[in-house]
């Protein structure tokens, strides 16, 4: 899309108010969705709730193939489809809904840097644990990831798609230098990331003063999912639990924005 076309689209988006029937698509919650996709989806839901924008969550077995970028989750608003948190944040900003308008330049730079830290470390670690063959990770892959990912499809397509996905993720891990890592090194990276987030949060209710930003939504999505997802080992959740302020942070956001969901 050219710059002129992009500007035109954003103008149209800005002109139309947020509709009541906005929809967020994700894989099937009970049988199919994996840790990383669940985290990304929860981050988008948290962000939209923080903005006060209503959205209906719809689960589809083929959500990944419905998405324009092949990434999950994506939202369908009016006649537009937008996938992933970053573009969704830009899209809502065009409509006049933003959580980071109150930040100065340095704070905005820090917010974006920490968002990249979460994507670079937590998201990558989730993908590694789901798909990469290390002694323990293989267990997760065989018992959880492959069966869940391919659950909507019949044999032999189920096997083909699961292997294809695993191959894709492994190639990406090699490209970013994670191919040679052991599971312990991955857990160490998660600890390092959580400690960095914990230091940044300190005693504040949110990462930047008293109002949540997209960083808060992203961190909540990943940490809450890690804490509440059952894997073959609890090691990943234990690393998060070692930072008490992050636990309080997750509880606070859950109570504030997901009251109706908490059971």
């Amino acid at each position, binding site marked *: *899309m050219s*710059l002129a076309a992009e500007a035109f689209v954003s103008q149209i988006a800005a002109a139309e108010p947020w509709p009541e029937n906005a929809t967020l698509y994700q894989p099937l919650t009970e049988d199919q969705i994996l840790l990383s996709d669940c985290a990304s989806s929860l981050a988008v839901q948290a962000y939209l709730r923080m903005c006060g924008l209503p959205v209906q969550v719809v689960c589809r077995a083929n959500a990944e193939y419905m998405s324009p970028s*092949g*990434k999950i989750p994506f939202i369908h608003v009016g006649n537009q489809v937008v996938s992933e948190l970053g573009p969704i944040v830009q899209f809502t900003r065009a409509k006049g809904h933003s959580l980071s308008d109150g930040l100065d*330049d*340095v704070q*905005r*730079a*820090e917010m*974006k*840097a*920490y968002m*990249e*830290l979460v*994507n*670079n*470390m937590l998201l990558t670690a989730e993908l590694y644990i789901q798909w990469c063959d290390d002694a323990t990770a293989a267990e997760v892959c065989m018992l959880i990831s492959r069966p869940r990912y391919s659950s909507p499809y019949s044999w032999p397509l189920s096997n083909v798609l699961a292997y294809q996905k695993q191959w894709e993720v492994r*190639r*990406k891990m*090699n*490209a*970013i*230098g994670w191919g040679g890592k052991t599971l312990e090194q991955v857990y160490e990276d998660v600890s*390092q*990331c959580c*400690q*960095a*987030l914990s*230091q*940044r949060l*300190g005693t504040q209710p949110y990462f930047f003063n008293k109002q949540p930003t997209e960083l808060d939504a992203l961190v909540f999505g990943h940490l809450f999912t890690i804490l509440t997802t059952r894997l073959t080992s609890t090691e990943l959740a234990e690393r998060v639990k070692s930072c008490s302020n992050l636990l309080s942070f997750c509880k606070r956001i859950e109570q504030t924005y997901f009251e109706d969901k908490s059971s």
Partner: protein
Amino acid sequence: MALAFRAYAQFAGAPLKLRKISNPWRSPSGSLPALRTNQKETLSRPSDIIIHLRKQKYNADYDLSAKEGADSLAFISLLEEKLTPALIYAFWIEPKNYVDVTRRWYAEHLPFPLNFFLPGRMQRQQLEKLRLLRGDESLEAGEELEKEMYRDAAECMNLLSQRLGSHKFFFGDSPSSLDAYVFGHLAPILKSKLPNAKLQQHLKSLDNLTNFCTNILLLYFPRDGRESQKTTSQPEGADFDHVPNKRRKQFLSALVALGAMLSYALLTGMVSIQHVQHEALEEPPDLQHIGPHEEEGDG
């Protein structure tokens, strides 16, 4: 990225013996950069090298608070996600830059015959890496991709510029690992003479980042800094005049040319070599002994 760990080693005061080689296959790991430790261990990834230096008590982040350490980690992630792909694109994928600068530089610095196939192979590897990083198998060089890459990179530079502000380094008066990483990413953009220099133009518009790179070059790489200042005053073509082992390469080129000319002369019949049979001075060996001897050899 070799520049990042060299800068880190300088900041931390680590005693490194620098050995410049133009053949990556002669490196202990088969790739460049590589660090051979005292324990005869070989490390290739800059992040692994920095971790090793830290374990050896050469730590440029020693004075950082816990929060500054966290910020450092976050901004390094920002660089990896936003600026690294744009650097790969600018040097390896953008056609004009690759042909006029990157391939030419490697072809002139790599030994024969590696200079014929290694640059192309490296380009394919970098394109594959970019495809995997962006999750797009059909990714090719083009206006759309370039615009997206450079937009991300420009945003990253703006964020770094805002974070640096009017300070000399990112955290106070002494450089840290973040400074090393930022310098390692920005110095090549600033100092390379690329035909398509959009990234360089944007970087030069951010005075504090430009000064940051220049200061580090002058303070920690004084010889390199002076050389780069000399080359900037020279015309564009002079960039490749100072080739290492120039005499040897000229001699080899002359030999190859001579060999080619002789081969051509022989093949076209310009020069012919006649075989003249002389009478045997000695009697031929006893044929009776040859048969059994050959049989033994076969058996």
